């Protein structure tokens, strides 16, 4: 059974699902996706990217020089896409179960009875 992805890893893969991104682009996109809750720093980001590359989930796409600074773009691999789909499905099932239970709680609160 694959291990659940940690939140920063999940957000990095989600960010790359939109297309190749370079380091700062990834930091900004993860920040946007998490509403500012997950704020990655470059040291942490590149550590995570190295691990994802070791697992075959991301790979370098291309390089460019902008304002004298090196930008290396990263993209999702087919294995990375599979891992992201599996994690999204796992989370979707949890959300579905929680939503059903909460809906049941709402019914109980309104009627005072436990739904059948």
């Amino acid at each position, binding site marked *: *059974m694959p291990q659940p992805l940690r939140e920063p890893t999940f957000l990095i893969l989600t960010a790359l699902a939109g297309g190749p991104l370079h*380091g*700062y682009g990834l*930091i900004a996109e993860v920040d946007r996706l998490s509403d500012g809750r997950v704020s990655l*720093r*470059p*040291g*942490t980001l590149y550590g995570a990217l190295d691990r994802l590359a070791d697992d075959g989930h991301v790979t370098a796409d291309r390089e460019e020089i902008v304002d004298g600074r090196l*930008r*290396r773009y990263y993209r999702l691999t087919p294995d990375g896409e599979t891992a992201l789909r599996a994690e999204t499905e796992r989370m979707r099932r949890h959300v579905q179960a929680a939503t059903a239970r909460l809906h049941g709680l709402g019914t109980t609160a309104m009627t005072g009875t436990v739904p059948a």
Partner: protein
Amino acid sequence: MSNERLALAYRKLLFAYPQGYRAERGDELIGAYLEMVGDRRRPRLADATDLILGGLRQRLRSAGLAGLADGLPIAAALAMAAGSALAVFFLLTVEPGRVSTVGWLRVGPFATLGAVVFVAWLLAAVTAAVAPGAPARLAVAGTIATLLVVTVLSNKSLAMIQAEGLPAYIIVPLLGLALIALAQARDSGWLLRLLPPVSAITTAVWLKVDSADVARVAEYESCCMASAPLPMALTTAALGLLLAGIAAAIALGWRGDQRGLWALTILISPVMLLESMWLGDVEPFRSLGSLADSNDIHIAVAGMSAAALTAVVLPLLLARLLPLLNRRRDTFDDPVS
């Protein structure tokens, strides 16, 4: 600070990375930082911490030990729990007692300066439960600083103040546990966050029930008799830590998650430190420890030697064994290959 000088300041902070990695990825890392920080004048402390920890992680990865970083948050919670149990034990047994040395300072309601360390430890445990991540790490760092200050202040040869401190065979394992507890993760689950307070409360309840043993503890003894309560407390903490590590390794390993195994590997070193008093009679640690003339220091040196050995050898062995085990499992999973 100009852009070039800021880039140079960030480049200096890359010292923790392996040379090859710096050459390959240094420009990219600095570029990402320069884009992120805008017109900042100099790197912040958080930037330095990020790059130093990133460099250390990269060195572990190069040695095939990347799993150590994954196991560290679990090891940190278990180390914090073991230290919390010891803090409660010492606070409720030795610290309310009278110090036999005439004329020595009493610290509030407590007998020795060690009480300050134990109170700091329990505050760090509560912080880890309610505010994990940076606040918890800061609280643990504060505990380490308190332990070091108390050790220096109460050192009899320096005699800065006339107050009793802690013996070396207690200081050293506490320091080992605290250094591991520094790795408090921001996203720890409730189970890991509640372990330290639960362990402290359980110890307090146990002491209340077993009050006969408590009465026998008068002061921090010179090390060590097998039946004495203080060495037995350290041994109980070591055993608890070991069993908790094994339980984590089995429970997580059952789901194919190796973090528990790495956490157990990390925890063997503080277990060795807690068991210093017995290792002092075992070769080659006895010979290493005998370089010190005091019995307490002899014990501490023996424990540190054993912990240093396990901290290096065990992770390297695991790094070599895990890929072989995974390969075998893949072969069993896929009989065609």
